[in-house]
C-alpha cells in the first residue's frame, strides 16, 4: 500500500450519516439553549456565553462517549457495525464541537478583559493540590482537547497508510486518555460549581457504561484469543460444510493472529483476519460477488488469492488448506500476501 493522498471518498451512505449527525448536533445544541434560556433567561452577554459553553461542552462529552461506545458495541453485536463504518466523521465532529466549547471560554475571558488570568490559572501549581474544588480543571479540558486534536489531525487514510495500521491504532488509543481527562474536567469543574443532580448522574452513567462495554468486549475477545493447539503446523477448522455459505469460521493458533476460513459455494479459502486497511476483522464479513468484504469499511479481497480487485492494490496473507478424513485443516504459517491458495471441495 502506498501513502498517496486521496480526498475523502464520499458516497451516499457517508453523506446520509453526516447529515443525520449534523442534524442531531444542531437539534441538541439548539434545544439545550432554547430550553435553558426559557427556564432562566441569561441576564447579559456573559450569561449567553455561559449557556453556549454548557451546550457545546455537554454535547462534546455525549459525542465522545458515543464514539468510544461504538467499537465495543460492534464487537459485541454486529448490528452496530453500520455505526462503525463512518465513526471517523463522528470523531472529527466531536473535536470541532469541543473546540467551539473551549473557544467560548476564551471569548468569556476576553469579554471580562481577564485573558492574562487564564494562563495564570493554568500555571498556579499550588492549586493542583487543591482537590477537588480548587483544582485547575481547565487543564484537564485542554489535555482532552489536545488528544482529540491529534486524533482528528491524523484521521485521514493518508496517515493510516503512512503510519501503518498497527501504529495508527496505537496512537488512536490515546483517545481513552482524553476521555478520562474530559470526565475529570467535568467532575472538578461543573460538578463542583453547579449542584444540579443531573451532572453527576449523567457523568457516572456515561463513563461507567463506556468502561463496562470495553471490559465486556475485551473479555469476549480474550476467550477467542486463547487459540487452539496446532499439530505439525496444521490447525483443525472443522467440517467444511459447517461453514455457512459466504461466511467464515475464525480460528487462531495458540499465541498467533487469527485466521479466517471462508466458504464460497464449493470453494474454501483461508486469509489473515486482519484487514489491510485498519486491521478490521475480515472474518466477520461475508463474500459478496466472489470478494471477501470487511465489515468495518467494506474493503474487498478476492476469495481465491486475497488480492483487492483492480484498481485497488491491498492484499491479505493467505494460508494453505487441506482435507484430512473429511476435516478441513489450515496451515498456521502464512503465505506471502496475495498468494493463490483456495481449495476446491470434492
Amino acid at each position: 500500500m502506498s501513502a498517496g493522498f486521496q480526498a475523502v471518498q464520499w458516497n451516499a451512505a457517508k453523506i446520509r450519516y453526516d447529515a443525520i449527525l449534523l442534524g442531531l448536533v444542531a437539534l441538541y445544541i439548539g434545544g439545550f439553549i432554547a430550553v435553558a434560556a426559557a427556564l432562566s433567561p441569561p441576564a447579559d452577554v456573559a450569561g449567553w456565553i455561559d449557556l453556549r459553553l454548557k451546550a457545546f461542552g455537554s454535547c462534546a462529552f455525549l459525542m465522545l462517549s458515543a464514539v468510544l461506545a461504538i467499537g465495543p458495541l460492534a464487537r459485541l453485536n454486529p448490528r452496530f457495525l453500520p455505526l462503525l463504518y463512518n465513526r471517523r466523521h463522528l470523531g472529527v465532529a466531536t473535536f470541532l464541537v469541543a473546540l467551539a466549547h473551549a473557544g467560548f471560554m476564551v471569548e468569556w475571558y476576553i469579554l471580562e478583559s481577564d485573558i492574562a488570568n487564564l494562563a495564570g490559572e493554568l500555571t498556579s501549581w499550588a492549586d493542583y493540590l487543591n482537590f477537588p474544588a480548587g483544582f485547575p480543571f481547565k487543564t484537564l479540558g485542554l489535555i482532552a482537547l489536545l488528544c482529540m486534536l491529534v486524533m482528528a489531525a491524523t484521521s485521514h487514510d493518508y496517515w493510516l497508510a503512512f503510519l501503518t495500521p498497527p501504529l495508527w491504532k496505537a496512537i488512536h488509543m490515546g483517545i481513552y486518555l482524553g476521555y478520562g481527562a474530559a470526565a475529570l474536567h467535568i467532575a472538578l469543574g461543573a460538578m463542583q460549581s453547579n449542584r444540579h443532580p443531573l451532572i453527576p448522574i449523567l457523568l457516572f452513567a456515561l463513563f461507567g457504561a463506556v468502561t463496562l462495554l470495553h471490559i465486556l468486549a475485551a473479555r469476549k475477545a480474550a476467550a477467542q484469543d486463547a487459540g487452539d493447539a496446532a499439530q505439525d503446523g496444521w490447525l483443525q477448522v472443522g467440517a467444511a460444510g459447517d461453514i455457512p455459505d459466504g461466511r467464515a469460521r475464525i480460528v487462531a493458533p495458540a499465541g498467533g493472529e487469527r485466521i479466517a476460513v471462508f466458504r464460497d459455494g464449493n470453494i474454501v479459502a483461508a486469509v489473515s483476519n486482519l484487514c489491510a486497511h485498519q486491521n478490521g476483522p475480515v472474518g466477520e464479513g461475508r463474500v459478496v460477488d466472489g470478494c471477501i468484504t470487511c465489515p468495518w469499511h467494506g474493503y474487498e479481497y478476492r476469495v481465491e488469492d486475497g488480492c483487492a480487485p483492480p484498481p485497488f492494490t491491498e492484499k491479505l496473507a493467505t494460508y494453505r488448506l487441506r482435507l484430512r478424513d473429511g476435516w478441513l485443516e489450515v496451515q498456521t504459517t502464512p503465505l506471502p500476501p496475495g498468494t493463490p491458495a483456495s481449495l476446491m471441495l470434492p
Partner: protein
Amino acid sequence: MKRAHRAAHRKLWPLLGLVVGAGLLLALILRPPPEGAAATDGGFTVLETLR
C-alpha cells in the same frame, strides 16, 4: 485488531476505569457544601433572617 492491541485493551480499560472512577467518586464525596448552606435554616439564609 492485532492480538497485541487486544491485550493492551484488556489491561488498559480496567485500569482507566479504576483510576478515573476513583477520581470521579472522590470529587463527588469531597465536594464542598453549596455556598450559604451552612448558614441556611429552613430555606432562609442567616442574612435574610437578620434583615
